[in-house]
């Protein structure tokens, strides 16, 4: 990890406060411990046996290509896993997501996806307590070109839950 003094104009260290201004677009904030850790040792980085739903998530711009698969028990996501090659942001997001959704109902998961999008879109809002550790990914919102990456696992999961098991491009932004 770089010392704050080496990262340019701002000396913001690894606090949890999300960056608020372009000047605070700190690398440290993006590659904070939690992202690095989840990138190095991603949780659920395999497709669970006997999954009922899965989808492929593809990013047209960077070529990343992941698959997310879910074992359902009724309305509940029993186990969720992912595979594929992806950047640290996508990998950490997928890792955190698969942890967060475990045992939650489909409607709760879809609500979680909505909340996650909202916090990434609005750096000025406070953390969403419902999202727990996922709030750690809010540092991504200071890097507009990477927000897509953090959302990719969620979009892919949504596709899987919607029964689209071959989703070729999930870069589509929600309508304004």
């Amino acid at each position, binding site marked *: 990890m770089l010392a704050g003094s080496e990262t340019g104009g701002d000396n913001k260290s690894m606090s949890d406060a999300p960056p608020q201004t372009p000047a605070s677009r700190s690398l440290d904030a993006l590659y904070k411990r939690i992202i690095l850790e989840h990138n190095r040792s991603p949780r659920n980085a395999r497709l669970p046996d006997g999954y009922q739903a899965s989808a492929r998530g*593809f990013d*047209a*711009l960077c070529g990343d290509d992941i698959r997310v698969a879910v074992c359902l028990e009724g309305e509940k996501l029993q186990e969720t896993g992912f595979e594929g090659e992806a950047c640290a942001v996508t990998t950490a997001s997928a890792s955190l997501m698969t942890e967060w959704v475990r045992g939650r109902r489909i409607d709760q998961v879809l609500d979680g996806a909505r909340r996650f999008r909202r916090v990434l879109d609005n750096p000025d809002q406070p953390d969403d307590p419902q999202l727990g550790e996922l709030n750690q990914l809010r540092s991504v919102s200071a*890097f*507009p*070109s*990477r927000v897509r990456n953090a959302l990719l696992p969620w979009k892919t999961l949504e596709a899987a839950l919607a029964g689209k098991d071959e989703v*070729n*491009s999930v*870069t*589509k932004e929600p*309508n*304004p």
Partner: protein
Amino acid sequence: MSEALVNPEPGTAPTGRLDVDRVRQDFPVLSRQVHGKPLVYLDNAATAQRPLAVIESMDRFYREYNANVHRGVHQLSVEASEAFEKARRTMAGFINAPSHREIIFTRGTTEAINLVAQSAFRPSLKPGDEILITRMEHHSNIVPWQILCEQTGAVLRVAPINSAGELLVDDLAGMITERTRLIGIVHVSNALGTINPVREVCRLARRHDIPVLVDGAQATPHLEVDVQDLDCDFYCLSAHKMYGPTGIGLLWARESLLEAMPPWQGGGEMISRVSFSGTVYNELPHKFEAGTPNIAGAIGMAAAAEYLQSLGLPAVAAHEQELLDYATGKMEQVEGLKIIGTAEGKGPVIAFTLDGIHPNDLGTIIDHYGVALRTGHHCAMPVMEFFDVAATARISFGLYNTRAEVDVFLDALERARKMLD
């Protein structure tokens, strides 16, 4: 006229009137001399002049954050992409499009219409299908359909106009058949000035489930355009007619139509995945924007839209209508002068002929007095044919023109007459 206007804007006086002296300062070219005379630019329908806000927006891009869009993680690319997509949203707002995903950047109106012809219609058109346009279309809204008809065996049908240059809507209605696949109509005619009853034509078409393409090239500089209110299906415009840069314009179309249309051009940006076993196209709007776009152009176009919005299009229109009325009144008194295009509702365009003087000679002489006007067929030869003239001379007003400039023109007209008489 101006009393009805509220919400004064910058460049708009407290009365809601356009402060013309002030807006003229925004246009560097207006301080230019031509043949030793101050430029009087009355060729706005061909292309408008550009305000500083537009010139500087592009300058800033090139000097400060020039980069390719969409594909980069680096700062310049992020800034360029944001500005480019912000321009798309600005343009969506400018014509009140429901979604920015429906805004496809093109080189201009012409490319937009060609895109629609080739992508939306060529694959499905059958011999005997009909494309219905009007007699007053610009070549841009004729030739793409002629080419399409040749390619598919479809038939181009043409709704008539009257001697005032007005569309005969009832005749158009009568020409609709069950083979009609599209109605193409110019919003404001560049050759006649006529403002067409687009909303009415759309209502008519909707009853028969026929999509309507509107050529808005001459409308957006003068009118507040609301594609949802018009209830049309395709709307095309060019930035350079509305004080923006050359080389950029747009196609707006309903999302459902765009989704169903195959891509037209292939290349970078418009694909999701390419392999030799099969290629997956990208989502809207990128599916239709192959290759590096005109980034500076899009930014400049949005700056032009914002400039017009800051002045307020109602104030702009009121000012231009005043000039139109004044000039029309004066010109009607000129002996041997015939105005071509005398519709009830008109944009600020006056086309005319002068007995015994060829428009090109007139143009050359009038130019000598610093007055820029256009002569020729105005890319609307069927209109020329209808009025049985080879060409006309045309003056067209922009938001910076003044009564005094109309007087300079009238004076030059008189001199030309004396010279060639």
